[in-house]
């Protein structure tokens, strides 16, 4: 209903940052300050930007993000622990024009799901993997993950992760970048606005890999689990920047778009 307008009409204010359309109205159930929220938003923004919401199908993994289908406003499957890449494969082969992504934690992807991620990548499945590495099993209460740093104390490495008995942190994108089926592989971080923007740029390429049918795309994002790290969110993000990146260097490990020498 148009009302009588005041004479001095203000300059139209523009909403330049708001909740992306591809997120439902439901508030995240993550702990305050948890990186999952930021990463969810980035994924949703990209779904919006690429205009694929009506053909996006997400694979929730088992971890704190098990309920990510509560938050993403598109078709979803809640997969068995570690098996999201296999389930995504079944979906993508059925709907080659869908935008299929999995959202997986480090326990899910790098521990129990090692075989499935390696083989989906090697097959060059046209899917996009968002890999949230918080160096710990968040959902189950802070056990050691394959990505846990050396000497880091967790509930199952009470004296610190001993590399002699339990190995060291496993670097998934470096490993995956070796596989021919992988079009894009990079590692970003959710620890600061600057890193978040960079991570989003990486994710954008992983999206493009699928949409342009170049192959498998994965972005690992270092994320805080402030609760199980027993730190404040701010301390936790600082820990990412100061400690975690030493074991997990940020950057692009494979880029089908950059590497022009590749066919």
């Amino acid at each position, binding site marked *: 209903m148009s009302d009588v307008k005041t004479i001095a009409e203000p300059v139209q204010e523009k909403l330049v940052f708001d909740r992306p359309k591809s997120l439902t109205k439901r508030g995240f159930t993550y*702990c305050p300050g948890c990186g999952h929220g930021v990463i969810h938003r980035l994924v949703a923004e990209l779904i919006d930007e690429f205009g694929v919401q009506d053909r996006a199908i997400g694979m929730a993994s088992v971890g704190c993000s098990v309920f990510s289908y509560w938050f993403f406003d598109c078709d979803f499957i809640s997969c068995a622990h570690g098996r999201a890449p296999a389930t995504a494969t079944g979906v993508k082969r059925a709907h080659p024009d869908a935008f299929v992504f999995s959202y997986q934690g480090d326990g899910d992807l790098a521990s129990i799901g090692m075989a499935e991620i390696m083989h989906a990548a090697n097959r060059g499945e046209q899917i996009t993997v968002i890999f949230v590495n918080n160096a710990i099993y968040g959902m189950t209460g802070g056990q050691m993950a394959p990505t846990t740093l050396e000497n880091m104390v967790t509930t199952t490495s009470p004296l610190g992760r001993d590399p002699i008995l339990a190995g060291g942190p496993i670097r998934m994108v470096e490993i995956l970048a070796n596989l021919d089926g992988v079009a894009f592989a990079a590692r970003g971080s959710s620890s600061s606005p600057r890193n978040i923007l960079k991570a989003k740029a990486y994710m954008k390429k992983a999206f493009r890999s699928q949409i342009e049918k170049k192959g498998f795309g994965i972005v690992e994002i270092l994320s805080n689990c402030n609760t199980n790290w027993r730190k404040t969110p701010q301390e936790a993000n600082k820990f990412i920047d100061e400690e975690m990146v030493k074991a997990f260097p940020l950057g692009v490990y494979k880029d089908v778009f950059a590497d022009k020498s590749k066919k």
Partner: protein
Amino acid sequence: MLVEMIFAGFGGQGIMTLGMTLAYAGMIEDKNVAWIPSYGPEMRGGTANCNVIISDDVIGSPTTDTPGAVMVMNLPSFHKFEPKIKPGGTLIVNSSLISDVSKRDDIKSFYLDTAGVAKELGNLVFAGMVALGGLNEAMNLVKTESLEMALKKLLPEHRHKLIPLNVEALGRGAALVKNGS
């Protein structure tokens, strides 16, 4: 004797440990005891509560929907558990955080300003012990020495120096109940 109790409050109020302390003390007195946690669906944040049972007989059901006593440390817990108390049962209310009052006349209710007492003892962490002291007094469950021994078992060595203050808190809580606050 069979007493089924629910302890309820916020996540950070030490509810679980209070329940364990009582259960441990019961065990020390050679009673059958059981303690069982019940978290909300999301493990972190929100309310926490536990069931404690003390019995002369072998304990059957480890949980109860009709507790003989309830100790509530925050408002949502008051609303949730106050109606469930068995007729003739006991309600301990942390009046420092809960301003509501029970309207039931078939139970005995005690309103303890646990925070007030705790502050007098120098630290808010003693609030729970005050409530526990009150509950123990109201229900006549275990000896204070047993609770003290339980604390020795449950607290890590470096916190043993706090035991006297905890015992004091128990006593102050008991006194509040005895004096019918």
